């Protein structure tokens, strides 16, 4: 039985989705999760976002800084660095090409 759900599809593009929500504004972990969910990726799990952030950071696409907060714990913000921006642009190109191919393939006969 063929099973396609968002979680499966997301695996391949989670990096790109996380980079994309950091394009304009830096964010801390929970904030990034919220942005992704607000954008429509409601299935996404906390561990996926946290793990992806750590991995992108370790790979050199993100920088971090800590912002003290009056209430609650200090927050670690993630920001795109030049490598991250390049990656976002290249990944976006690949995705658009891929999506357009898939759209063509899946086009229902009129």
């Amino acid at each position, binding site marked *: 039985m063929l099973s396609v759900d968002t979680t499966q599809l997301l695996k391949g593009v989670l990096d790109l989705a996380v980079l994309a929500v950091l394009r304009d504004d830096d964010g801390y972990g929970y904030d990034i999760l919220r942005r992704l969910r607000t954008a429509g990726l409601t299935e996404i799990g906390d*561990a996926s976002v946290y793990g992806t952030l750590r991995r992108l950071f370790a*790979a050199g696409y993100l920088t971090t800084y800590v912002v003290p907060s009056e209430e609650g714990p200090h927050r670690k913000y993630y920001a795109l660095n030049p490598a991250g921006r390049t990656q976002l642009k290249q990944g976006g190109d690949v995705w658009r090409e891929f999506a357009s191919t898939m759209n063509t393939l899946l086009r229902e006969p009129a």
Partner: protein
Amino acid sequence: MNVEIAQYAAQVGAALSDLPEQARDDLLEDLPAHLAEVAAEIEAEGGGATLAERLGPPSAYAAELRATLGHPGRPGRAGVWVGRAVSRAQVRWNGLDRRLGPVIGYERLGEFLALLRPAWWVVRGWLVAMLVAQLWRDGDGLGLLPRFEGSTVLGMMVLIAFVVGSIWLGRRTAAAPPTRRRERVALRAATAVVVVFGLGLWAAADDRLMGPFWQDPSAASWAPDPYQQVNDVFVLGPDGQIIEGARLVDQDGSPVVLGYCAQRFGWEGPGGGGRGWEWRVVYPSCPDLSAPQLPWVAASPGPLPWQTPTGPSPSPSTSGSPSPGVAAATPSATPTPKPSPAS
């Protein structure tokens, strides 16, 4: 809550114990801090829920984390190049930071620079006030205080307002740097404008302070007037005696108005508008200014050109009191000054 966080993180870590140490450490390094954020969110939403209720059991969290471990790919070539350049610059700065710090008695140079930040805030406020004042009046002249409509008081008020605002902004951005990229870019661009303006202002001020000493006085519009200190003019004949009622005329036949009395009288012409001043400007022009002591002219008294060489020369004793001396020694010379081209 802290115990819960530590427990949850430890359980996630245990479920990932089979991973290579480096990968696991990279993954788990920030987990407690992240869980604290999640806990704070739970708290903010009314509380009550445990981490396990919100995030699922630690084992499931660990499984999800493990699923994100796919190879992220390496940065593109341009990205790598930029990244390397940035990290090289950082390494170099770190070296300088540690090496130059001790020279001025600090562990790191950055430590000292951080202390200077409030000073920069004050300077920034001043520069912005100067910039605004400059834009306000279309750039005529440039002082060191901002002036609005020529008012220094208003300028001072604006200056204080900008300095206070800059300090406020500095404290705010130091406590919490803006997380919006657009805000950050705007702040940096504004800082660049202010710095460039500041350098320009500094160069202009330096130029102006250095100006009179090296610049050609005739070329500089603001060169000092060398006759500023002249109050009156005494015209001496070749015999060294003061000529009363002398006139000074320039190459165009216009009277030379020098000194404070001449100017004063010059503008009191019968025409009212200054047309009559030509004949009023005679030197010495100040009626009550005593003649200068001239010991150096008395030493070499010479005959006037239109006098016969046999005429008596003034005795040295007359040099101390010129007015009677003029009357006694050269009675004919004083009332008839050399005819000027203007007459």
